[in-house]
């Protein structure tokens, strides 16, 4: 008799894998309300920060890669007019996010108006797993409005390496 109970208990333990959760208690509703409030607050604070920290003449530098690229980006260094303004090391997870259509904001800030030189150095692995380093520079003029520059890392499968393309937008 005891052994039969034991079997039943073990079968219950093995049970189904939890799939969906349907609970709606008072506490859950309070949690939902709070989550919504926090989300609103996070948005409002970001808007205020933008208003305070970034005047309407900011410059932003973005990075994107070819969707599904077989080449792996390891890190990237950004220099503006000889001054180091950013460095980023890509985890596997982050690089995967880039290859799925993500666009990374590398730097936002005030850039002097007129002629500027952006220098980008990056290291990566080609599809054969060999590492390489490349540096490119880009000259741009900064005017009174916002300036957005997108650095596209494009596959150059002939050279089995990355190629950089720059795109500029002025407001």
């Amino acid at each position, binding site marked *: 008799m005891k052994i039969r109970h034991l079997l039943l208990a*073990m079968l219950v333990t*093995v049970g189904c894998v939890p799939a969906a959760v349907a609970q709606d208690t008072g506490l859950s509703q309070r*949690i939902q309300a709070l*989550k919504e409030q926090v*989300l609103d*607050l996070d948005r409002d604070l970001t808007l205020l920060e933008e208003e305070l920290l970034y005047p309407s003449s900011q410059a932003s530098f973005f990075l994107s890669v070819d969707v599904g690229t077989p080449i792996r980006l390891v890190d990237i260094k950004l220099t503006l007019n000889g001054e180091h303004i950013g460095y980023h090391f890509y985890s596997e997870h982050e690089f995967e996010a880039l290859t*799925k259509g993500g666009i990374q904001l590398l730097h936002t800030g005030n850039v002097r108006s007129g002629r500027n030189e952006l220098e980008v150095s990056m290291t990566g692995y080609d599809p054969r797993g060999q590492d390489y380093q490349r540096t490119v520079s880009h000259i741009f*003029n900064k005017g009174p409005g916002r300036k957005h520059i997108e650095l596209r890392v494009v596959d150059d499968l002939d050279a089995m390496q990355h190629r950089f393309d720059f795109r500029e937008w002025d407001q």
Partner: protein
Amino acid sequence: MRRMKHSLRAHLALGTLLACVMASADTGTRLVLFDDLASTPQALGIEEQRYLAFGGAILDYYSDRSFAALSRLRVNQAHGLFDDSTEYAELLQGELFLDYGLPEQAGVIFERLLRKDILARTRAEAWLHKADLHYRQGDYQAATDILTAAPIQALRPEQQPHRQLLLANALIHQGEFNRAADELATVPLDSVPGAYASYNMGVAMVRAGQPAHGLTRLEHVAALPSGDPEINALKDRAALAIGLTELRQGRADQARAALLRVRADGPYSSDALMALGLANYRRGAVRSALPLWLELIRRDPVHGAVQEAMLLAPRAYEELGALPQALAGYQVAAEQFRAVLHDLEATARRIRQPGWLHTLNDQTAALASQDPMAWLVRQGAAQGDDLVYLHQLFAERQFAEQYRQYQQLVRLSELLRQHQQSIPVLQATLAERQQRLARVAPRIHEQVAALRQQQQQLADATAALAQSIPQHLDINATHDLAELPHAIMWQRVTGWLDSTQPSAAQRQRLERLRGRLLWEIAHRGPANRERQQRDGAALIIDADIAGLRLAALEQLLNDAHVALQSDLGTRLTHLAEQIEAQRTQTEAIINELGERLQLAGLQLLARQRQTLGEHLAEAHLSIARLQDSAARAQQTRGRQ
């Protein structure tokens, strides 16, 4: 489970993106990918801003920063970039709301999308999300209705497995196994979601009184080739479920065969050893059962199967007539049960202490990301000594979900704390900027006005100069055509010839020099004129750049003026008050939820204590019984 969901989400989001890219202009706003590169700066229009903003949200989404992605979408909504017409952003936001635990907001978005005249594929994706919403809310019939309706068939082929799995799971919950099996027929079984669905269906069929079909389904899972740890654990679980079901059916040999497939070093090995012993015991092979239980009693006594084995092993000795070994076994079991009871008591004390739940958090996961929606600790990922007693709780759906909520709230509280810290910094920045601007703005304003005047004059002068450069070469205008050193020399030689009274020889030499100079100027004339034109054009550009820089300064001055006039300070103070109120509220809910979890833990420990008490009593009774029978036997031998 998380990973399988993530990969499905990845397909969905990318699919959404592609669908939006391919959408025609008359079906709403589409996302433009800008494949054609322009060599010169383009105007930053709304589509370009949407492209960059949505790309940022996608990066956060796939980097396990879903809260940041959701917040970014809402910030850009406030900027006017995303609205009802940007379906791709709407779909992502709906999904993120769902994951964040705000199903009503997600539902509103999906309803809004479905009312619109949008691309059939986008509409199908909205239906899929809506079905997911119903499924999560436990409304399996509504989910089934959507998943079998015509509009959802427009999903892209790579999204169909997700639909089929969702439908199969909804049907399993409704006991419609045949239909669920039809849906699963085309889903690859060796995929993690496919294997889970098949396992769930097998167990559900066994429970619903269809053991034969259920066992077949479980057999498919158990026979999967070894894969990643998740698949391997599921294979073990399926083999164990088969073994236990066969045992209940009284088929000890089949049970034994299934249980032997459970890995010895896997998470279900103790349960399998116990059941294997029971299988042998049931078919009368007590000698075969004993070594399995003896192996089991060497393991951690906190495990239920080990505790059972501690009583079953001496009982097997008893049945084999080895009474001294049986007595020793019961005595060891009693000692072990007492030790576990002592441990349970200590665990209960720890659980009652404040901050106990924090000790369960996986610090590695916490370090990886602080996003409130990032991967949180669930069953198997929590850490700490107390978990050996509480793993059963984490296997319970409600407890696991509440614990996930608890962790999310802790992270939200941390986020609020960071916001609270940033407010004084922002206020100080604002005050410092306002003071500085009030001090320097009038002076800079005057200087900019003066510089603007200078720049205008410079621009006019350069334009006039450039215009004054003749297109043709006129040797009579020697001073314009010559390079500067030649022009100076020409002026001097001509002056000497005109104003002095040179001797005939000197005049001849000067005239010869003037002739050579003229030849030189004429020879270099074309190149020099080109250079003059280039320099003129460069001067115009320089004057323009100076104008551009002045415009930038004027823009900054305008920003400064706006900053001086703005009510940012008041708004920051208001936000600080909001943060404080929300922190208080969050802490209250965290405490309440923590108490619930604590209570659930203590209740589980109480149940375990009761079971252990029963085991202890059984061990003592068995000891007494064996000692009595030994005493009686001794007395009998004495009388004889």
